[in-house]
């Protein structure tokens, strides 16, 4: 009994951690640019596939390349970190193609929504073309050295979930420390607060914007790799669902709020884990039902700042 309770809570916290990563990915870009990067879900998928390939995973690309794989087999940790970096670079490319042309023109925010969704569509369909629509499972040896289950307080729990939670926590702590303590992190916060003033203070706001995209993509890539190894890669569309959940978490916590994204993620993960198994089909609607309620009761999110409309 205690096993089941502990495992349920841990499952919730682990998936909540991944939701928080995605929500933080949105938050970074939103705080600097004031728009939502809808390509983030596709970047999440990319992170999963790149981790899989870097670890020597085989693909068949709809039968076009049966048994093809990269001639390397990195262990999980370097593969995950490298995949996060590569996904971050892909995110920079998204910025260049979907955001930069509109920014130079001073276009209305609505257009960013379309172009970033277009970028996501291109990415997901490229993955589908190159990797195939079929799902892939990471090799059983992917987490060699990690025991299947851990004994905690007399209860046996799955260690993959512990790993997930640990990596997410580490990433969130690193990000928070960087934002609060480092020079570049503070510069990013300054740009988020007021881009014009930041520019007058000599902060290169363009560089900060690119940094925000890089980190945002890396967080999504990290999430994709973690979900891939703990569950599987069900297909190139895997990231879309996580992208949408991240959006729900983002609003739940309040747009642009870092602690809000973390708290919202954990809350959402735990709420989902508590859905009984025989109603699991409805689990995917829970996040959005919660989101709906929060929007109606507190339109600025749980930890969001209130804005006053001026004439």
């Amino acid at each position, binding site marked *: 009994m205690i096993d089941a309770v502990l495992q349920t809570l841990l499952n919730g916290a682990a998936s909540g951690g991944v939701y928080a990563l995605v929500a933080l990915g949105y938050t970074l870009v939103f705080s600097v640019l004031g728009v939502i990067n809808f390509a983030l879900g596709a970047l999440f998928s990319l992170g999963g596939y790149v981790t899989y390939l870097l670890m020597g995973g085989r693909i068949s690309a709809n039968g076009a390349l049966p048994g093809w794989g990269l001639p390397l087999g990195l262990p999980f940790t370097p593969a995950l970190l490298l995949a996060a970096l590569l996904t971050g670079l892909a995110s920079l490319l998204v910025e260049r193609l979907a955001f930069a042309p509109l920014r130079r023109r001073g276009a209305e925010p609505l257009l960013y929504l379309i172009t970033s969704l277009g970028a996501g*569509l291109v990415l997901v369909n490229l993955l589908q073309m190159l990797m195939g629509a079929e799902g892939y499972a990471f090799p059983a040896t992917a987490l060699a050295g990690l025991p299947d289950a851990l004994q905690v307080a007399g209860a046996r729990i799955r260690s993959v979930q512990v790993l997930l939670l640990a990596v997410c926590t580490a990433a969130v702590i690193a990000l928070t420390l960087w934002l609060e303590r480092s020079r570049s992190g503070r510069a990013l916060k300054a740009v988020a607060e007021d881009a014009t003033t930041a520019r007058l203070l000599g902060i290169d706001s363009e560089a900060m914007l690119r940094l925000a995209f890089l980190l945002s993509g890396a967080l999504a890539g990290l999430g994709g790799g973690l979900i891939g190894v703990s569950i599987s890669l069900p297909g190139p569309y895997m990231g879309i669902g996580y992208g949408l959940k991240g959006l729900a978490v983002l609003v739940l916590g309040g747009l642009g709020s870092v602690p809000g994204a973390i708290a919202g993620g954990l809350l959402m993960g735990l709420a989902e884990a508590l859905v009984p198994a025989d109603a699991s089909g*409805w689990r995917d609607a829970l996040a959005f039902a919660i989101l709906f309620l929060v929007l109606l009761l507190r339109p600025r999110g749980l930890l969001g700042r209130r804005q006053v409309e001026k004439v």
Partner: protein
Amino acid sequence: MIDHGLLVQMLIGALLGISVYLPLATGQLSLATPAFYAVGGTLAALLSTRWAALGARVDGSFPLPSFLLELVLGGALAGLLALLVGRLVLRLQGIYLAIATIALVEIVRVAILNLPFTGGAVGIFGIPQPFPTAAGYLPPALALLLLAGWVCQRLEVMALGRAMAAVREDELAARCMGIATTRVKLSAFVLSAVLAGSTGALAAHFLNTWNARQGSFDTAVTMLAFVILGGSRSWLGPVLGGLLLTALPELLRPVGDVRLVLFGLVILLGPALFPQGLVTPALLERLGRWGEGSRP
């Protein structure tokens, strides 16, 4: 040889484009159209396959009056839902409204997937056909589009349409002028839902099967692209965008798997190339009286 099925699909795309355009004409970004489309389609699929009184025959044919009744019922149910939901969500602004409507789309999708009577992942199939061929769907789809276009055109000279434009340009100023902004936004939202619901009912018969995938986040995005690439300043924009962007993936079919990548590229690069859409205010000016009322 013209592919009638493709033409019907294009008309459905144009109808859904208008449905996304209507709330946008009051400055509200709502992505709820796929939810209302799914509600209308599911109602039609359920009624025609489960309710014998509508007169579905064993050979798979279906009486025309029942089909028309379903178009009305699909629109009415969607409109009713919009009336209930709209009161709540239209208090939200900007991106919050967009996300709330995405949430609505997801809730409706999961509900259709899990309700005991909507056929789960497979959906409802063998929906009876009021017309023997795809070409038969052209007149009702065209009639629905003309009706929607006529309503939009009439709106331009009606108090409601003018109030919609005022709310789009400056909601606060409109409210100060004594315009009941919430009522105006709600009217546009309900009109949009009625149109999407009727279109869903038509599409359910046309497609012959109906499942939860018909109304997803992806479709919401594609429909928004109809409006943005077509032009969001007049209802002619989403019609043009809907016709072209529905045809594009089908016309690209010969190039194989690359087609969806190319489709994505069009959505990715289109707004930078045509920031005002294909039907620009300047073009409307030249169209003369017909487009005159459409300008803000």
